[in-house]
């Protein structure tokens, strides 16, 4: 028997066709949620708990009878911390798997890699991560905090606890630069003065000279939106020089990926942060969330800001499906734009109709004994940075990520 390319092709085409048929029949009575996250590679410390949170939310939804009488199926792809795989899997999710909604993306680069594919294929997209703000696109909903939401509450608190002269050390890419600008603005608004701003590429891990330089300037407060494993060295070297006892530190990033658990209590204690979530948040919602997580995964140590954002994102989408009574994209957007809100582990989450970002509770916290002790809760903070540039009610066809000028 001869086996050439033509017979091979017909054979596989038949096979492929046969495998599609029954699946299409099943698809009618289930809803498909696509997930696209780095669950391996250098970003897996962020991605793995996000994936766990997404599955936890879906299991909960399915256990309660699913949505619209149908079960929700997860179609998940691991992008292995490789930006090229995002575009590839985004195509697969939207064109082959034909999912009803996509949750995922971690770095801003990964979000921008898939956002246009989602828009073109009319697939509703949720990005559940703390990021630099400014994305204005009717097809996307963003449930993470933006710099202004954190900085607006953190700066006055930090200034009150230190003094007026602020030294900023930021990561040298768009997140750090934009956040540094917001810090400067709010420092000025609160009667403080920014004495210096230094930017560090992500591979810098030696901060000895910087620490000496900071001392020659002698600020009252150091603000450090630094990012990643190398930058963690700053907090360590700062403590090793004994500076943590002299000048207070504040950060918008320390702890978002549970990195505060790497520092010893002596190194980390006293760093001021502001987030939507903390494991130490003592509310019934958070306690029951931690219990659910521990039942599913053994213990609740891995929960972090981004995981909770993901959980809240999936829950917000599910609530919209329930209220709209359909999974049609346009109807869901209209429902979400009514200012839909849910109660998540970190408090109430409300969708802002103007920007498709989230109005969230922001907690001022201090790192204490490898945890984040909640000092003050500021309910329902608006994403004021993105609101300044983005109005999807007035321009529904907008499709830009704005660089916010201050």
């Amino acid at each position, binding site marked *: 028997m001869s086996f050439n390319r033509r017979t091979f092709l017909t054979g596989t085409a038949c096979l492929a066709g046969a495998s599609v048929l029954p699946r299409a029949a099943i698809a009618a009575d289930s809803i498909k949620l696509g997930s696209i996250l780095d669950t391996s590679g250098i970003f897996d410390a962020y991605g793995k708990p996000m994936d766990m949170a997404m599955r936890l939310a879906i299991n909960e939804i399915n256990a309660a009878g699913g949505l619209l009488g149908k079960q929700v199926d997860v179609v998940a792809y691991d992008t292995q911390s490789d930006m090229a795989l995002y575009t590839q899997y985004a195509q697969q999710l939207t064109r082959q798997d034909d999912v009803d909604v996509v949750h995922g993306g971690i770095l801003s680069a990964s979000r921008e890699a898939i956002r246009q594919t989602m828009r073109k294929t009319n697939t509703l997209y949720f990005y559940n991560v703390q990021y630099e703000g400014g994305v204005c696109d009717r097809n996307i909903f963003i449930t993470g905090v933006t710099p202004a939401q954190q900085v607006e509450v953190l700066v006055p608190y930090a200034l009150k606890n230190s003094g007026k002269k602020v030294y900023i050390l930021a990561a040298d890419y768009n997140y750090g630069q934009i956040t540094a600008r917001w810090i400067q603005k709010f420092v000025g608004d609160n009667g403080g003065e920014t004495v210096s701003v230094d930017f560090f590429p992500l*591979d810098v891990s030696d901060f*000895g000279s910087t620490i000496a330089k900071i001392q020659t300037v002698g600020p009252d407060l150091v603000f450090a939106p630094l990012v990643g*494993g190398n930058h*963690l060295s700053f907090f360590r070297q700062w403590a090793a020089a004994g500076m943590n006892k002299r000048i207070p530190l504040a950060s918008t990033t320390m702890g978002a990926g549970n990195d505060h658990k*790497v520092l010893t209590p002596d190194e980390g204690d006293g760093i001021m942060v502001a987030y939507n979530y903390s494991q130490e948040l003592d509310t019934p919602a958070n306690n029951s969330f931690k219990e659910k997580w521990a039942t599913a995964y053994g213990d609740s140590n891995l929960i972090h800001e981004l995981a909770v954002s993901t959980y809240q994102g999936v829950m917000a989408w599910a609530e919209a499906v329930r209220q709209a009574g359909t999974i049609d994209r346009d109807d869901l957007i209209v429902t979400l734009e009514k200012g839909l809100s849910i109660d998540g582990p970190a408090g109430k989450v409300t969708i802002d109709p103007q920007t498709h970002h989230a109005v969230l509770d922001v907690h001022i916290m201090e790192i204490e004994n490898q945890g984040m002790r909640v000092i003050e809760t500021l309910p329902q903070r608006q994403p004021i940075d993105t609101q300044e540039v983005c109005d999807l009610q007035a321009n529904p066809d907008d499709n830009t990520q704005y660089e916010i000028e201050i």
Partner: protein
Amino acid sequence: MDLSVVILVEFLYAIASLILISAGLAVIFGMMKVINLAHGEFMMMGGYATITAVNAGVNIFFAMLVIAPITIGLIGLIIERLIIRRLYGRLIDTMLATWGLSLFFIGLAKMIFGNTTTGVSTPIPGLSIGDYQINGYNFFIIIIGFIVLALMLFVLKGTRAGLIARGTMQIPEMAAALGCSPDRVYLVTFFCGAALSGLAGAILAPLVGLTPSSGATYIAEAFITVIAGGPALIIGLLSSASFFGTINQLFTFAISPIVGEVMLLVSAVILLRLLPQGITSKFFKGKF
């Protein structure tokens, strides 16, 4: 006054850490002519060895100065037997083989320790110099850096083992004819080089957040220092580390850490254009 002391310490620290980072490579690449692209991973493993030992309750100084170098030395021993000894004298092949090894070790560390950042805190508290606070651990690095250099000088110049090693690296056939087994000399020398790399990784571990891919941060600086040093091992290491450390810190203090890094690389390019064989091909000739 206080500031100048602080700055002096930072300069010495920069030089000493360059010496530490490059010492292992100076032996493996400078002496043995094996382009060890897994050098950074040897350091990374030294760091993990320290952290693992400290978490198991071992004293941190013992972990850094004894456990880490011996562990990495032994790993080096196995690699030498299995792979490197078949490749002596084949520069390009050693590069490929050690590059593969570097990927292997990164993967292995990811499997064992996971992909998250870990670390230990520094065992020495900060000091005050006048109005300034300074990292007390810097002094430890300075001292260890110069002890390592002195020890290398003593072993290579002052002992019979060092003489045999140098001779074997120059003309292995002659060493064999005189009754030394080049095979064993290579083995021991590689062990020492790997142990020095492990030591460097261990000493620097408390200052950084360690991940399996941390090794990559050191490899460029290490190669530049060793290559710019030139043929004389110890003096070359000292002079190029001093040169690059000074340039780096000068621009770091004057402008910013990024400019410091950039100027280090720019000065390396200029230096190698003027002295393609390294500093010691022109200065300190015939010295050690």
